[in-house]
Every structure is written in structure tokens, then in C-alpha cells.
């Protein structure tokens, strides 16, 4: 025991260093955990205030682009409208065709903090639990998908950007319906990779990639990007496909939070099968 104390005393500097590093690693590990109750994030009051101030300045500079984006979004929304509804009158002739039930709700939010240059990127939005935001809601912009809500405080929420090591979105090739998954391999916010597409699938530059109906988070058919480069000469059964993302992550100002009203029902049913 005495020897132990002497040992601890002699190397106290090193042990203190290890202790602090262990604290840091713990915080990082917690941060990666999907639904954590961390206090070191920009949802907290002071950090969000400062980030709000910075964003107020950049918002003004980007005003022109934002206006153009909103006009484009209006046009896009009109064409989206039928897809927003879940039609529950299929195969029931006695129910009138016009009876439709809403499946997705959209809420506008302003981006108060954003990054694209890290390996794991996050956004902060100015909507929180008081407005009905909850974790695992989807986030989209006028141009395409943005990310998934990770943490919520009363007035702010932080969003795991698609530009993240752990993000994986189920995607569909629009012209032939094949399903793959999108991941971001880092370093360039304009490009991502489409995985799990077998070699016999014919693809051309410019083909559109949209979200599939497999996700309980994003509605079906939200734009992801276009094919930029295809390499079929790989060593495995799948093609290497580079996708040019349609969302311009570097200049996001306003985004939409997507709430799937029937998500719980779907997940509960699916959970039963795996038991």
C-alpha cells in the first residue's frame, strides 16, 4: 500500500494527465452515442446565443441566395404535395377516394450553426422541444436531405449532418428502383458514395438518386443527388459510385424538420418480427 502511494506520488503528473484524457475520451464516446444527455454541446444557452449572433451576420450576407432558394422551394413544394399524404383508402371501395390521412408534418427552422469541414459534422437549429421537435426527426432542405435530429433543448436542437461518419441513408435509383445505401466518406462536402449496388445495374452520369421508402425518418422520393462517376471494375460484387450531393451544405440557412406521424407504429410492428 505504501509502495503504491509512493508510486502514485512520483508519477502524479502523468497520472493526472491520464485521468484528464480518460475524461475527454469518455465525453467523446458519449457524444457519439446517438441519444445521449450530454451537456457539452451547442444546445446550451451561451454557446447557442453566440452562434445565433454569428449566424445573424452570415444570414444577412446570404439573403439574396436565401430568397432564391425559398422561391425554388415553393415551386418544389407544390409538386411534392401529393406525396406528403398517406392514402389509407387503397383496396377499400366503400371509403371515398378523397379521404386521406396525413403522414408527414413539416416545420421550418433556421440554421444557427453549421460545419462541413470536419469528419463528423453537426448543425444547430433554432427549434426545440417547445415547438415539438424530438430526436430522430429527419431534416431536409429545398435541395435535398440534410441530417437527423440528435439532441433537443427547449429552444434549440442539434442535428447530426449527413456529412458524418455514422450516417447511412437508404437510397433508391429513380429510373430503375434499385436500392442502395448512401454514406459519406469524408473530405468533400459535395460528394458521397452509394454502396451495395450490384454490377448488373446500369447507371449513367446524371441519374437521379432519391430516398427510398425503407426509412422511417425521411419521406420517400426526397432528392439526394445525381450520379457523378461510376466504376464497375471493382474487386467485389458491387460498383463504386460517386454521387454529387444536391444539398449545398456550405450555404444552408433554412431547413425543414420532418415528423413522421406513423413512425412509432411502423417501428413497433417491425420490432415484433425480430423477437
Amino acid at each position, binding site marked *: 500500500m505504501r509502495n503504491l502511494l509512493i508510486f502514485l506520488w512520483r508519477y502524479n*503528473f502523468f497520472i493526472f494527465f491520464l485521468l*484528464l*484524457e480518460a*475524461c475527454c475520451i469518455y465525453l467523446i464516446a458519449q457524444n457519439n452515442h446517438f441519444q445521449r444527455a450530454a451537456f457539452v454541446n451547442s444546445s446550451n444557452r451561451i454557446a447557442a446565443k453566440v452562434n445565433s449572433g*454569428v449566424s445573424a451576420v452570415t444570414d444577412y450576407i446570404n439573403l439574396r441566395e436565401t430568397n432564391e432558394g425559398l422561391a425554388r422551394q415553393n415551386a418544389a413544394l407544390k409538386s411534392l404535395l401529393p406525396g406528403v399524404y398517406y392514402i389509407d383508402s387503397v383496396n377499400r371501395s366503400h371509403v371515398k377516394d378523397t379521404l386521406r390521412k396525413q403522414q408527414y408534418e413539416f416545420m421550418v427552422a433556421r440554421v444557427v450553426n453549421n460545419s462541413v469541414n*470536419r469528419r463528423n459534422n453537426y448543425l444547430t437549429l433554432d427549434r426545440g422541444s417547445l415547438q415539438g421537435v424530438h430526436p430522430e426527426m429527419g431534416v431536409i432542405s429545398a435541395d435535398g436531405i440534410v441530417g437527423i435530429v440528435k439532441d433537443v433543448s427547449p429552444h434549440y436542437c442539434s442535428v447530426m449532418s449527413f456529412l458524418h461518419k455514422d450516417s447511412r441513408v437508404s437510397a433508391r435509383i429513380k429510373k430503375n428502383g434499385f436500392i442502395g445505401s448512401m454514406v459519406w466518406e469524408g*473530405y468533400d462536402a459535395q460528394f458521397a458514395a452509394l454502396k451495395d449496388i450490384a454490377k448488373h445495374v446500369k447507371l449513367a452520369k446524371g441519374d437521379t438518386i432519391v430516398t427510398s421508402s425503407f426509412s422511417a425518418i425521411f419521406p420517400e422520393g426526397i432528392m439526394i443527388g445525381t450520379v457523378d462517376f461510376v466504376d464497375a471494375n471493382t474487386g467485389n460484387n458491387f460498383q463504386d459510385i460517386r454521387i454529387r450531393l444536391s444539398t449545398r451544405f456550405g450555404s444552408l440557412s433554412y431547413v425543414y424538420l420532418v415528423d413522421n406521424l406513423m413512425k412509432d407504429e411502423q417501428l413497433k410492428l417491425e420490432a415484433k418480427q425480430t423477437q
Partner: protein
Amino acid sequence: MIVQLIQNAVRFLLLVFLQVVLLNHIQWSGFVNPYVYLLFILLLPVETPKGLLLVLGFVTGLVIDMFGNSGGLHAAATVAVAFARPGILRLLAPRDGYEAEMRLVPQTMGLKWFATYLVLMTFIHHFVLFYLEVFRFSEFFLTFFKVLLNVGISVLLMIMGQYLFGRAVNRNERILG
């Protein structure tokens, strides 16, 4: 003593402010993201106790983490820098050792000494930071390139800032580097 305390506190606030408000928003080609806040740890007086160094490193990193949503990444990197500082200082010690209350600025230590010190420390910081962030070896060389590029830019910014805003010290104290 009091003057030194205030000087360092002001430097802390200015550097954190600069980092959070301006430099965190530099998003150039997805590679460049300079971090200059660690200048605070580098410029602390030579006689700062080792334990205090670690605590200050931890707190500084944690504050940057709060604004950047990065958990404990910056804290881990800054604590590593604080841990390495006494060793690096011993390695780079001038022939007669450090004088009491010697300021670790290029105006007293010479530009060559200062640049070497900065490059070594910034490399440690960026290395820990970027590799912890990526946390896998499959992107080893790209990450290494990113570390080297950012070390260059961060050090350049820090030296420029030191010459522009660091108070010039009496010419007599100057040791040619």
C-alpha cells in the same frame, strides 16, 4: 503577478472569441480549419505549475468543444499539448536555461526558437485532434496530409498574430535566434 494573471485571462478570452466567431467558420475546400486557441497554453509563463497547465488545457479545450459540438475532442488534444509542454521546453531550453519570468514570445526568444516551439506543439495538438476525430486507420494518409497542412496554416497565423498584436518587448532583452 497580477499583471500576468490579467494578461493571460485577456489572452484566453480573445483567442477563444477569435476561434469561435471567425476561425471555426472558415470552410475552405474541406481541408483547412486553423486552430489558434492553443496559443493560450503555449504562451503561459515558464514557471506555471505542471498540474495547473493540465487543468487549464482541459478547460480551454472544453470551452471550444462547447461551441463546436465535438464532445471532448479539443479537450483531449489540448490536454496532450499541456502534458507535452514541460518536456518540449526542456528539449528546446537555451544554453543558460530559462530566466525567471522570461516571456515565451519571439521578441525575447528569437523567431527561430519560437517557430520550432510552435510547430512541435501544434503538430502534437493537430495530430491528436484529427486522428481522434477520424478514429480509424483506413484514412491514415489523407488525415496525415490534413494534419500537416493545418499545422502550417495555424503556425503561420499564430506567428503573424504574435507580431501584430503581441506587445513588443524592450530591445535590450532580445536574444538573437
